[in-house]
């Protein structure tokens, strides 16, 4: 069952009012709509190869082999909502964006993500008490042949890679389902993504704490 949750504007840890993201609840998961934060296009159609750039070489993922913008999909029992179609892009290239989330108890932050070369960085978790925890975010490479170095689940896979001027067979690409633990027993109100342009986030879902474990 899907329940649309009204966006609550949280107290902003930085003073300025944060951009609030809409959230859709599904069976204990809060799918955060990142569309307003999208700032990079990593997916292109075969007819418009040059419109996407997931790395410095200008490679992109084939739209024909991926779910459409705004689609909800499930991987490892975690639902994700992809960024909606817009001129701004189809993913959030991490540059310290603040993601406001519905105030609540969560166990996990799940991310549908991939990196331009595997990398580690930190997510800042902001809690209603004023506490801030820095937690590691580790994301593997989207490139052909790269393993799930950090133990992620493969969430999406494409059989081809797009180059700026051609479609390349035998070069599959991949997106990962990664997760970050919320260790503090406190209500989470927001997340700051890393300042790391190598990391691309295509969807973000919060897993709520089961009532019995509160």
């Amino acid at each position, binding site marked *: 069952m899907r329940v649309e949750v009204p966006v609550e504007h949280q107290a902003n840890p930085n003073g300025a009012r944060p951009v609030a993201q809409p959230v859709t609840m599904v069976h204990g998961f809060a799918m955060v709509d990142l569309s307003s934060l999208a700032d990079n296009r990593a997916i292109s159609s075969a007819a418009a190869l040059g419109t996407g750039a997931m790395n410095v070489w200008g490679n992109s993922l084939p739209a024909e082999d991926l779910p459409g913008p705004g689609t909800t999909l499930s991987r490892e029992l975690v639902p994700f909502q992809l960024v909606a179609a817009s001129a701004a892009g189809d993913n959030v290239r991490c540059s310290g964006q603040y993601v406001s989330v519905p105030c609540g108890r969560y166990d996990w932050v799940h991310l549908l993500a991939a990196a331009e070369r595997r990398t580690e960085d930190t997510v800042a978790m902001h809690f209603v008490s004023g506490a801030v925890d820095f937690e590691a975010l580790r994301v593997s490479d989207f490139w052909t042949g790269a*393993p799930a170095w950090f133990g992620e689940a493969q969430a999406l896979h494409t059989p081809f890679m797009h180059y700026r001027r051609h479609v390349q067979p035998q070069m599959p690409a991949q997106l990962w389902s990664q997760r970050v633990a919320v260790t503090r027993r406190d209500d989470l109100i927001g997340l700051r993504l890393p*300042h790391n342009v190598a990391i691309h986030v295509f969807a973000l879902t919060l897993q709520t704490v089961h009532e019995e474990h509160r």
Partner: protein
Amino acid sequence: MSTIAQGNHFTQRAWVVRGQLLFWYRDLISCLQSTFATVLRHAGQDPLEVLGAHWEFRFTPGKVHAEEFDYPCRFSGDLGRSLAPYHPVSSRWHRPAEAEAPLAGLIAAAQRQQLTIAAVDNFHLPFRPAFHDVHAAHLVVVYGVDEHRGLIYVCDSMPPQFRGPIPIADFLNAWGSTNQRTEQDEVFSGTGIDRRWLSVELGEAFPEFDAAFLRRALAADRQLWGMRAPQHGGPECDDWTGAPGLWQFLDTLLECSRGGDGAVLAQAYPFGWGPQAQASLHGELLRRWGSQHRAPVVAEAGARVEAVAHAWTGLRMTAAHGRHTPTAVVADLERHARILRNCYEAAVETLYEAEVTL
């Protein structure tokens, strides 16, 4: 991992190196490590043990080339010895003499049953994704030449991976390419390929990879980290090495970013591939050894070294993406420089902790 058994001479003008020719790939290495790895595997050696044994920071100012295989050599001109200084590995660059047939050196090596490594421009290689799209300097292993049929046998472990014959004409185009620089190919283009090739010499006495070997390697890591000037580069060598060298490299990168010098930022991408690959292999080797020998401190040290490799990603990508707007990425570069320094320092600390347990 597929293998092929190579035949002996099949015509008077064809030579193929015998033995199994195996791919070897890791996601953070470049063609430099992958080609040497194939040569090592062909000789029955474990590439991770050989290429992952050594770890240091080294930067040669003013000598960064826009090539995937750019690497600051601890031993001038000897990539093999610089990559694997604790093993009997050595290499030497060659170019065909004007008077000789271009392929003479490669053929002579194949006749001696020796693999060679050739520089190429991917733009001209049919099996590379960059074929007729992107100019990029790359390395492939050459394991045979069939002049009669106009074929040369090459092996490339980098995705999508290829092993087999290609027309000599294609190879000559790639091997002799000027590697023309264009705006969209700027990362690894601009340096002529110039028919360069590497001969690789492997000695007989590869050391046993045991606790004693590892202890010496870790001690060397620590010594090299604290070293301001290289001992083996000769008095004329002005490499920036160890911790002081890394600080100097990062300070210079940040100064150039603040000053709007995008060219230096662009160089951080090809240069950074070498230390990133080296850290990833050294870390993986330590972690594997620690796991196999129930030595958790060694495994943890490996993970710390791998974290250095992962921190290089942030610095390299921020610099590369910011090369056209260097002043706009100053804050992010400062952040990644700080993270990288911290990762190196944490890794060196744990290496010492691991060393004393061995």
